[in-house]
């Protein structure tokens, strides 16, 4: 249809041919009238109807010239000739119209010299002006020329009507009714030709114009057609009004008919104009729909040739603008389908038909570069003046295809992902019914997926958690908000484990829930850890409260430090009274310890010590200093090992410090007194002993040298003095032993008790022999102690037994045995006087003796020495005795067995 439209508009067509025939034909006829009618004087050529007025030679010549002028007016080449002919015609008409009434009558009476009549001249002049107007460029003023032509048409038509109605009888009734029949006919033809003057645009486009000029033109047509009829009728009416004959009646009737026809023509023309406009706007709409459609559109004729293609289709197939038109539609079909397409091209389903599907078919198209493009095509037919054309509408769906593929792939990936997640993953419909549980869920519960949908899974939730879970779930389904809830799920073996469940609604662009997506993460271990952590924390808090420890947490980058309430309380500050700054805290440290504190801290910062631990004094609120044990550890370091954060505690150790100080004092005192004792022991052994030895020795020397010169009394006095001196010596010796007993720093070792006893008995061999004592030692087990000291113990005990023997000769039994508790008990049993129970403890005290000082008794130091030695070795000593029944001294020592 488009093509038809264009073809119609572009070709000069019949209008042009008619124009040429009319103008040149009229010129030829005019020449014939002059040549034959007048030159050969053949009347019918001048009058057509015999007896009727003839066309004068001047008129015929004017018409011929006008015809030539009009015929050549449109051409630039013959412009001069056209203008010249028109001007010549105009000059003749000017003479006839202006000079004749003014008296300039041509000389003579020859018909050759007669001028055209007024009516003829007006018409000729009008059409000549039209010819001049379009001369050289008819397109320029063609619409005006059209009007001019209409005007030029009116007089000849009027005359033709008059002649047709009443014949030439009425000729001369008015100056406009003078035209002869040939003249009127020829001028009418030229007038019509004037309307067709434009070479390309026919008169009808002028008549269809929707502007004032078009309206005028359309009115002009009606006027040009009917005004002559009216005027002709008016002429007749004017002459026959009184006759009341048939002609008069006809005149009336034709007049009325003319009016009706004129109005009909007018409305028809107006309707035509409207229809024309609508058609054009429809065409334009179609054109735009076609051209600017995002869908590719191709019009194909019944031979398979592409008649029109829109830019979208060119884009789809990769052709340049205009390249598709004229190609075969099969050029756009990939090779394997081409033949089928050619055969079945016209068998698609038309509306109301049932053939091959023609709506939204997905096919592949072949692009200019040989690649394929997936298309979705809809076919329909369009009627055309040359038959039927097919409109193919197509969309490039490669993007959609790719998106579909991507969607498919992402869905697969998502499936795989959910199956590989350690979590239990599920999805539910927007209404809350679940439609998918992943493999982990199934494996965990041990129940097939289908058995748990849509709500079967709830059976695996711990009964105590179900209500809370369901109310959360219902709330989530209603609001579409995310859900997070913790509950226990039963494992296939019946064990419940805690899960952290999160659900998110997947929503479409309008916010409607499409799907619920959820995952359950096993948090059993975390839960356990939380409980333990809480316990640990609580324990720690209690411990901190109990131990009076202040906590601090020091940011070493910003120097901010957190100090716990307990920290402030320990030093008597109100909470926050000390700024939370690390450097300020350091200023509270006593100047004597500040340097040491910094050194230790720096060592820890340099990672040379695993902990920071310093005892130092902090200034309390009241200005006094409190001893603190400041301990801490860097808990964060940067990549270069620089400390970032340190936490620690301060423990109030003032009490301990005081105790420590007094203990140190005591230790020092004790050491000093021990040293004094040592000195005393030395003095006793040497300086004190020396004069005694002198006394004793010289008394003895005296006794020896002057024995015979002393009387009995003198000798007795001398004996007392010697005895006193000896006793004094024994006292000093024993005291020395006592002071040294158990003071040795030597470590405890294995002692062969048999040997220790043997040495003791050997030392006492003289005394034993003197006393006539019988000593029976058993085999003794080894013990831990020091051989020399234990010899002393045995020696003292045996000596004691000898000293306090009864009437009979002393009998001593010495035995020992070890028990499982790691101690060995040794006993020295005698048959002596025995000791009353009330004295049994006293005998181990220093200088406590049960017997009077008769010279034979001991110093009262021996047993005390034994006690001191045994206790130093971790044992104890006691006596079991009854007066007169002998005594058994027992002592214990750690056995040597545990060391083996």
């Amino acid at each position, binding site marked *: 249809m488009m093509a038809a439209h264009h073809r119609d508009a572009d070709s000069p067509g019949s209008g042009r041919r008619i124009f040429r025939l009319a103008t040149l034909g009229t010129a030829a006829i005019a020449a014939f009238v002059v040549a034959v009618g007048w030159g050969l004087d053949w009347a019918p050529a001048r009058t057509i109807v015999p007896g009727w007025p003839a066309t004068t030679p001047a008129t015929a010549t004017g018409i011929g010239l006008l015809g030539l002028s009009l015929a050549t007016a449109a051409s630039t080449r013959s412009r001069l000739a056209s203008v010249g002919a028109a001007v010549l015609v105009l000059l003749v008409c000017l003479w006839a119209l202006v000079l004749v009434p003014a008296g300039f009558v041509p000389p003579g009476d020859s018909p050759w010299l007669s001028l055209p009549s007024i009516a003829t001249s007006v018409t000729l002049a009008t059409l000549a002006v039209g010819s001049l107007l379009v001369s050289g460029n008819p397109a320029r003023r063609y619409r005006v020329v059209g009007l001019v032509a209409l005007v030029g048409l009116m007089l000849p038509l009027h005359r033709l009507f008059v002649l047709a109605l009443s014949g030439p009888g009425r000729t001369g009734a008015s100056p406009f009714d003078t035209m002869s029949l040939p003249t009127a006919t020829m001028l009418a033809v030229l007038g019509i030709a004037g309307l067709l003057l434009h070479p390309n645009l026919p008169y009808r486009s002028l008549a269809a114009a929707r502007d004032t000029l078009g309206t005028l033109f359309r009115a002009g047509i009606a006027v040009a057609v009917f005004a002559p009829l009216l005027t002709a009728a008016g002429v007749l009416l004017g002459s026959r009004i009184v006759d009341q004959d048939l002609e008069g009646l006809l005149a009336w009737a034709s007049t009325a008919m003319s009016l009706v026809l004129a109005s009909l023509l007018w409305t028809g023309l107006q309707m035509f104009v409207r229809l024309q406009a609508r058609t054009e706007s429809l065409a334009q709409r179609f054109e735009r729909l076609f051209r600017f459609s995002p869908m590719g559109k191709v019009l194909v004729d019944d031979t398979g040739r592409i008649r029109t293609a829109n830019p979208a289709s060119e884009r789809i197939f990769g052709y340049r603008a205009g390249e598709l038109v004229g190609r075969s539609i099969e050029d756009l079909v990939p090779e394997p389908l081409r033949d089928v397409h050619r055969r079945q091209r016209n068998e698609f389903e038309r509306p109301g038909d049932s053939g091959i599907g023609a709506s939204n078919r997905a096919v592949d198209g072949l692009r200019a570069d040989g690649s394929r493009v997936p298309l979705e095509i809809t076919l329909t037919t369009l009627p055309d003046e040359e038959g039927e054309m097919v409109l193919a509408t197509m969309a490039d769906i490669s993007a959609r295809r790719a998106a579909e593929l991507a969607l498919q792939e992402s869905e697969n990936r998502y499936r795989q992902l959910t199956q590989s997640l350690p979590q239990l993953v599920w999805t539910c419909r927007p209404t809350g019914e679940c439609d998918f549980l992943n493999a982990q869920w199934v494996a965990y519960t041990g129940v097939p997926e289908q058995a748990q949908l849509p709500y079967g899974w709830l059976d695996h939730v711990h009964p105590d958690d179900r209500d809370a879970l369901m109310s959360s779930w219902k709330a989530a389904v209603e609001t579409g908000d995310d859900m997070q809830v913790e509950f226990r799920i039963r494992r296939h073996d019946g064990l419940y484990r805690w899960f952290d469940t999160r659900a998110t609604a997947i929503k479409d662009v309008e916010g409607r829930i499409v799907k619920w997506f959820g995952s359950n993460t096993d948090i059993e271990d975390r839960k356990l850890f939380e409980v333990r952590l809480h316990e640990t924390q609580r324990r720690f808090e209690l411990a901190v409260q109990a131990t009076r420890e202040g906590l601090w947490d020091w940011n070493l980058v910003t120097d901010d430090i957190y100090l716990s309430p307990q920290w402030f309380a320990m030093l008597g500050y109100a909470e926050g009274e000390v700024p939370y700054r690390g450097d300020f805290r350091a200023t509270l440290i006593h100047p004597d310890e500040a340097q040491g504190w910094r050194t230790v801290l720096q060592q820890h910062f340099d990672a040379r010590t695993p902990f920071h631990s310093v005892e130092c004094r902090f200034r309390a609120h009241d200005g006094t200093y409190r001893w603190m044990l400041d301990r801490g550890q860097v808990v964060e370091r940067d990549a270069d090992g620089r400390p970032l954060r340190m936490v620690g505690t301060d423990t109030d150790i003032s009490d301990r410090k005081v105790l420590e100080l007094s203990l140190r004092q005591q230790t020092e005192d004790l050491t000093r007194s021990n040293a004094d004792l040592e000195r005393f022991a030395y003095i006793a052994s040497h300086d004190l002993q*020396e004069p005694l030895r002198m006394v*004793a020795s010289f008394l003895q020397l005296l006794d020896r040298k002057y024995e015979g010169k002393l009387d009995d009394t003198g000798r007795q006095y001398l004996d007392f003095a010697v005895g006193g001196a000896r006793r004094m010596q024994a006292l000093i010796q024993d005291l020395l032993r006592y002071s040294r007993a158990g003071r040795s720093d030597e470590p405890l070792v294995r002692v062969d008790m048999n040997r220790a006893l043997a040495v003791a008995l050997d030392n006492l061999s003289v005394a034993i022999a003197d006393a006539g004592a019988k000593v029976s030692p058993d085999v003794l087990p080894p013990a831990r102690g020091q051989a020399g000291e234990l010899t002393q113990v045995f020696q003292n005990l045996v000596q004691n037994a000898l000293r306090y023997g009864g009437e009979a000769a002393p009998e001593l039994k010495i035995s020992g045995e070890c028990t499982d508790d790691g101690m060995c008990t040794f006993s020295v049993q005698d048959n002596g006087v025995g000791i009353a129970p009330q004295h049994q403890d006293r005998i181990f005290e220093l200088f406590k003796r049960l017997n009077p000082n008769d010279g034979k008794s001991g110093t009262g130091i021996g047993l005390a020495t034994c006690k001191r030695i045994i206790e130093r070795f971790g044992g104890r000593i006691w006596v079991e005795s009854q007066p007169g029944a002998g005594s058994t001294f027992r002592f214990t020592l750690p056995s040597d067995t545990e060391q083996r």
Partner: protein
Amino acid sequence: MSDPMPFTPVDILLVEDNLGDAILVREALAEYKIRNSLHHVQDGEQAMDFLYRRGDHAEAPTPGLIFLDLNLPRKDGREVLMEVKSDPELRQIPVVVFTSSAAETDIVRSYGLHANCYVTKPLDLEQFMRVVQSIENFWLHIVRLPGV
């Protein structure tokens, strides 16, 4: 081995600040009826003077045995011991440390200074005399010493 010479008188040097002890030693030796001459000095300086024949002791003989007490005025017995044992001539003379001290430290120290023996003075007179006589007998009659 040459024959002992029991009748050759030997000079014994007794370094002892306690006159009582000096008398007891003299008594002990006298009782033994040996014709040895006992020289008694009361302090360490005199002892060194005697040994080096200095001052009053210019005519002193070289002793064949020294009884040395440890606690002496002016110059301690330990110093005397050290000086004697440091002298290549004097070190050959046997030195018997004869003291009332039974302290272990004194014993160890004396032997460390090369004392020939260490004897604690017995408390009992009888024992005292026996010990002195034993020492004299041992060092002057039993032991063989380099010829003086």
